[in-house]
């Protein structure tokens, strides 16, 4: 009797050994889900390590991050990997989501699998938002001020949501405590549950073959598929480490609550929130919140709306919806970056003119 038999795991292990993955022209997209899992695991490991030194108070937060990056051995790499990996995770999840969409992998019996994926997408954005404040630097502070202001526009519950997020009227130490609790407690708990569900369902249902394609062959899950995934993980790790070491994630100047200052020129959120940031320039907050809530709900129930996919037919409509979604996000993001660059340009110009215009201008730090 082996350990497997003692644990009554013989059946699932045999099933896993017998598992095959269909091979066809677009089966390389299957590997992205696994890559997302890899970056998620990197976040857990590096996040837990940072937790040993990070201190979530307005007085100590910035100092402790500085301490991690300057004093603690390997602290700079670990913090840099955590930040870069969060971006990699969001990027991979985005590509994974859209590739799944265009392959119509959400169709029955994988509708719930798709929904868990959307929930994970929202949770990951939540991680990004809550984690952003934690170093308590200038941009983090202003991004959080603005970010926690947006939900105010939600009908009826708006100000309640804001007060729940902030824990006080403004962004203060109470907000830091709350976002920290969400970042390291609440969100990981939900993420763990949904990642587990997502992976188990993928294992049970197997990978969907895109409509109109037929599997040319099959890849055995163990060992071929796993080894292929391992190669991708190693590439991911190598790139992550290289980027983290060569381009250390920056830490801006600390924000002192007792000495309010202006935001830096062109203050803006991370790239994955830029489309939202740009939208808020065009339409009022309530409209943006309502619009994106509807989009999100629509996106989550796509498996039930795309009736053609359920009959194994390609729907031209849903292909265009997907293309529109990508084009919309990409377009808004580009516009947002252009406006940020312009704002920084104007600010730089203003600074030089003031410097020339008056003699007593102190040197910018």
């Amino acid at each position: 009797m082996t350990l497997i038999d003692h644990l009554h795991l013989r059946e699932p292990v045999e099933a896993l050994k017998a598992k095959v993955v269909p091979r066809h022209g677009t089966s390389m997209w299957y590997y992205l889900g696994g890559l997302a899992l890899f970056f998620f695991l990197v976040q857990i490991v590096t996040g837990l390590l940072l937790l040993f030194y990070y201190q979530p108070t307005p007085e100590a937060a910035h100092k402790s991050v500085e301490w991690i990056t300057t004093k603690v051995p390997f602290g700079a790499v670990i913090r840099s990997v955590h930040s870069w990996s969060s971006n990699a995770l969001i990027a991979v999840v985005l590509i994974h989501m859209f590739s799944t969409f265009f392959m119509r992998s959400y169709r029955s019996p994988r509708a719930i699998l798709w929904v868990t994926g959307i929930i994970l997408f929202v949770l990951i954005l939540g991680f990004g938002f809550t984690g952003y404040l934690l170093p308590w630097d200038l941009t983090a502070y202003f991004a959080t001020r603005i970010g926690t202001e947006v939900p105010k526009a939600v009908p009826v519950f708006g100000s309640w949501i804001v007060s729940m997020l902030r824990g006080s009227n403004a962004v203060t130490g109470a907000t830091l405590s709350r976002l920290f609790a969400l970042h390291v407690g609440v969100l990981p708990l939900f993420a763990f549950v949904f990642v587990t569900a997502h992976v188990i369902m993928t294992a049970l249902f197997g990978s969907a073959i895109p409509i109109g394609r037929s599997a040319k062959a099959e890849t055995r899950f163990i060992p071929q598929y796993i080894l292929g995934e391992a190669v991708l993980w190693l590439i991911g790790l190598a790139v992550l480490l290289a980027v983290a070491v060569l381009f250390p994630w920056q830490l801006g100047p600390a924000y002192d609550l007792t000495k309010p200052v202006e935001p830096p020129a062109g203050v803006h959120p991370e790239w994955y929130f830029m489309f939202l940031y740009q939208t808020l320039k065009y339409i009022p907050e309530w409209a943006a919140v309502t619009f994106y809530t509807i989009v999100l709900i629509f996106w989550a129930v796509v498996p039930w709306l795309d009736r053609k996919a359920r009959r194994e037919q390609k729907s031209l409509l849903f292909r265009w919806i997907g293309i529109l979604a990508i084009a919309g996000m990409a377009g808004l993001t580009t516009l947002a970056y252009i406006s940020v660059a312009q704002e920084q340009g104007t600010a730089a110009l203003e600074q030089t003119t003031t410097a020339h215009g008056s003699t007593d201008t102190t040197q910018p730090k």
Partner: protein
Amino acid sequence: MFDHLPTKRRNILRALVAGALTAFVAPFAYAIGKFLSFQGTIGGSNTAKLSAADLTPDSPSKLVEIEGEPVIVVREADNSIRAFTATCTHLGCIVSYRPQMPGFYCKCHGGKYDVNGINVPGTRPPSPLTELVVNEQADDLTVSLTPKAKSLS
């Protein structure tokens, strides 16, 4: 994975895989070990400053903190000012100064030290408290964690 191979080749391949995995994991384990075993506190001061006037015959001792360590500064009967580590050498409680004893007393397990910080035989502490250097500039006292050289005894 190598079940289809002859035993000898299988064992060699398995050893190679195990070796490669160890070589892969080792640097990460090393880095994480180094990261976690770091010691230090953020912004901890390595000296404590106090005024000699704070040590009166009524309250001849004061507890101060240096790098997270409790330190007891006392004005002894002969009016000399001395500082000792306040951590009881028995189980790490914080000792207090008792002029009537005279000496240091630990409330946790009844440990006793004399005025020189030497553990009283028959009580629990196994070793003396460490006397620290006190820098006196008029009324200002600066204490650091530097042990005072044992010249007097």
